[in-house]
């Protein structure tokens, strides 16, 4: 096509102008947001694997307590798992580091680092981030953080064992947990990682505000951009709170200040307040981007405008605001004033409203849509359904009287995994398979993708649903050997069942890893716009997008991102950058259905 030739020429011209960067500048110290997104993707998928393996250790101990681990049992040192039998101290480290790696090094970068980097410039029509070098720094700061976190496994005393929440004084006084170096490395690593998140957040916010293409009004932004933009504000404002807390805890450990130590009149409860004041916005950092990504997939794969675009945006903003006034619901059992607990209970339950708005809008989008059940759509639908289950159990926990009964049990574990795995991770799978053709120029294998999805979906539910049951029957959340209590002994068969299902779940992820790399090299070549999508990354940029994204200059935007099956057009989609005079039209029907988007 003539236009393609022109853009290719223009691209060649720009490339000569910009001096084609060498290998190091292209693949290692790249300032290109797309390469940085891929770096984040590979790094965080690696940490997802690490977190999964740690979970396997936890599940082995709970499913087969006191038995030596098969196959790999001989690899462990005498201080962790002599002969393959996991020691209590090592179990603590496994639980702590599973949470830490999954939250800070897997899910958070998978959502914010990968999709913030990849989608924001492409979907708003910008050539790159506002600060490309800061963006590069954002990735390379996170690398030493990851290395330090991994190094903790190899120091004397083992890795941090105070849980991913690092409650003081367990975390602040080594004599309680027997861990000194591990906890310090944990604190240093997360402090460094905070700078990485901060650099990313400053970049995303500035880019979205200032670098949108002409015509890209706020309410023409695709929902992933909205979600990532709001999330970036949460990162920007919440991470420094954690950094402050981490530094105080680090000082307690190293120079002996007594911020969180009751022995010197410090306040152990202060740590919980500081941590959860960061921690609850963090929860929404971990789910909001997935909501945005899933909205895109569902609208596209239903070939319908997203139902209630403005309501979706306002719900994201409402959740982000409410996220700041609910942190106390993590602390109902901490001895907090019951009146304050009631306040936190009410604010927490209010969050169900914007969350429900989002769920009903997804259902409204699906309703009577032309549904395409391919891999991204399956994962996106799984996101919605699992998020509903996790959200409902969340309302139980938000009620202080119920929480008094179920706090610190496996019910909590079930809830967090329904929202974080069933929610966020399925959202991530949907996003990876949906944007895979854009990233790598090839389609993510539909067969392997579906095999992976169904096995994951089934085994995932077999792992986490029974946890509700054992939680209600009193199974503690972080216990090395539940069989020490007589009333928990009857639950052992369920625990064994969960463990077997968990191993299936983890093994299934190897299918994903294989499918990922197989599709990258051997997958079917992707056409330019395989999903017939409207957003700029498909319609205005070649696949894969070159350096500076849009060879013809910034695209001009004429309409909102979800104009599917528009009654005035012969095609079932209207690209955001298609000039109105080039829309092939059928006669406008006398009673057109109202559109939800477009200003």
């Amino acid at each position: 096509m003539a236009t393609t030739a022109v853009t290719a020429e223009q691209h060649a011209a720009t490339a000569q102008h910009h001096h084609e960067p060498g290998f190091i500048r292209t693949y290692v110290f790249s300032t290109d947001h797309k390469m940085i997104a891929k770096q984040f993707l590979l790094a965080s998928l690696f940490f997802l694997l690490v977190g999964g393996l740690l979970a396997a250790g936890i599940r082995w101990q709970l499913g087969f307590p006191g038995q030596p681990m098969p196959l790999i049992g001989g690899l462990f040192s005498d201080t962790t798992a002599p002969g393959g039998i996991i020691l209590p101290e090592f179990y603590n480290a496994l639980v702590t580091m599973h949470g830490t790696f999954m939250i800070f090094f897997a899910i958070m970068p998978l959502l914010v680092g990968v999709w913030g980097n990849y989608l924001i410039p492409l979907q708003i029509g910008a050539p790159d981030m506002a600060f490309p070098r800061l963006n590069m720094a954002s990735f390379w700061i996170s690398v030493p953080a990851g290395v330090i976190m991994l190094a903790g496994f190899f120091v004397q005393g083992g890795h941090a064992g105070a849980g991913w929440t690092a409650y003081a004084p367990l975390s602040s006084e080594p004599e309680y947990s027997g861990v000194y170096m591990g906890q310090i490395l944990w604190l240093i690593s997360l402090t460094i990682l905070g700078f990485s998140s901060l650099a990313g957040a400053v970049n995303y916010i500035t880019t979205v505000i200032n670098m949108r293409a002409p015509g890209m009004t706020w309410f023409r932004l695709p929902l992933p951009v909205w979600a990532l933009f709001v999330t970036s504000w949460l990162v920007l404002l919440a991470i420094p709170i954690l950094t402050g807390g981490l530094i105080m805890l680090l000082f307690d450990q190293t120079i002996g200040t007594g911020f969180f130590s009751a022995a010197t009149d410090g306040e152990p409860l202060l740590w919980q307040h500081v941590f959860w004041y960061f921690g609850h916005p963090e929860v929404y950092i971990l789910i909001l981007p997935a909501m945005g990504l899933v909205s895109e997939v569902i609208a596209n794969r239903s070939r319908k405008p997203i139902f209630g675009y403005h309501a979706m945006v306002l719900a994201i903003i409402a959740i982000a605001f409410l996220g700041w006034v609910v942190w106390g619901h993590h602390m109902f059992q901490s001895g907090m004033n019951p009146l304050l607990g009631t306040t936190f209970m009410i604010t927490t339950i209010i969050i169900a409203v914007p969350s429900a708005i989002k769920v009903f809008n997804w259902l409204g989008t699906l309703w009577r849509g032309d549904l395409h059940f391919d891999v991204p759509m399956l994962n996106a639908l799984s996101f919605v359904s699992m998020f509903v289950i996790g959200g409902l159990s969340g309302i139980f926990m938000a009620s202080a009287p119920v929480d008094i009964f179920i706090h610190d049990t496996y019910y909590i574990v079930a809830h967090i995994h329904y929202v974080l795995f069933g929610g966020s991770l399925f959202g991530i799978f949907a996003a990876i398979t949906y944007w895979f053709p854009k990233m790598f120029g090839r389609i993510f294998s539909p067969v392997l993708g579906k095999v992976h999805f169904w096995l994951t979906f089934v085994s995932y539910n077999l792992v986490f649903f029974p946890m509700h049951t054992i939680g209600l029957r009193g199974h503690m959340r972080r216990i090395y050997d539940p069989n020490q209590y007589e009333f928990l002994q009857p639950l052992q068969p369920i625990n064994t069942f969960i463990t077997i299902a968990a191993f299936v779940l983890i093994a299934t992820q190897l299918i994903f890893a294989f499918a990922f790399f197989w599709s990258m090299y051997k997958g079917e070549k992707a056409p330019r716009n395989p999903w017939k999508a409207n957003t700029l990354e498909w319609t205005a940029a070649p696949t894969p997008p070159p350096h500076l994204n849009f060879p013809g200059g910034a695209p001009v935007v004429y309409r909102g991102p979800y104009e599917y099956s528009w009654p005035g057009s012969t095609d079932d989609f209207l690209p955001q950058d298609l000039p109105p005079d080039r829309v092939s039209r059928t006669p406008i029907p006398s009673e057109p259905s109202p559109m939800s988007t477009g200003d």
Partner: protein
Amino acid sequence: MTTDASTLRSMMIPDPAYEPGMKVYTMKLGMWVFLLSEVMFFTSLIGSYVILRFAHPDHFAAPGVVLNVPLTAFNTFFLICSSVTMVKAFAAIQQGDDTGLKLWLLATILIGSLFVGIQAVEYYILYHEGFVPAAADYHAAGRQGMEGGPIVGGPLYGATFYTMTGFHGAHVTIGVICLTFVLIRALRGAYTQNDHRGVELIGLYWHFVDLVWIILFTIVYLI
């Protein structure tokens, strides 16, 4: 009916005339956004201080008993002066006065360094008076007290004092380093009347650090 028609029309009207973005250049916007995160960082430290102080008033001495208020008042005055010189530097380059820019930048750097120097001396003296951050070693006798006299305040006083003022001092130090970098660029003629963004950016940071100090001086030394 009218809503439908207007919705349709609005969809068909091209809107390339809409120029997105705030009317402020990207670097400046980025600096504002970054400073918001700095606000939250100091909020976490100051908030913790407020909570600890309300919970344990006995750990904190009356103003001027342990801390040397007159010395720090002078230091605060110097830091405010450095904000004035920073403004003068920015005003100079806005007029295209290259020499003025360099001189006022140099003045800002010198006063900023003086602030950090006086803070270091203050730390040194306080530390040797037994006002230390480590809880186990805290034995501040107070300004009027004799060595070995009754211990004034408690360990939370030392811990919060050094953490808050220390992180502020670190910010001033980073500011001085960045100012030096800006000065070197200014000496090479990097800034003109039309484009002096670097000066404005470091100015924003510098005023922020100054503002934080005014809050810290008030709540740590005066109240």
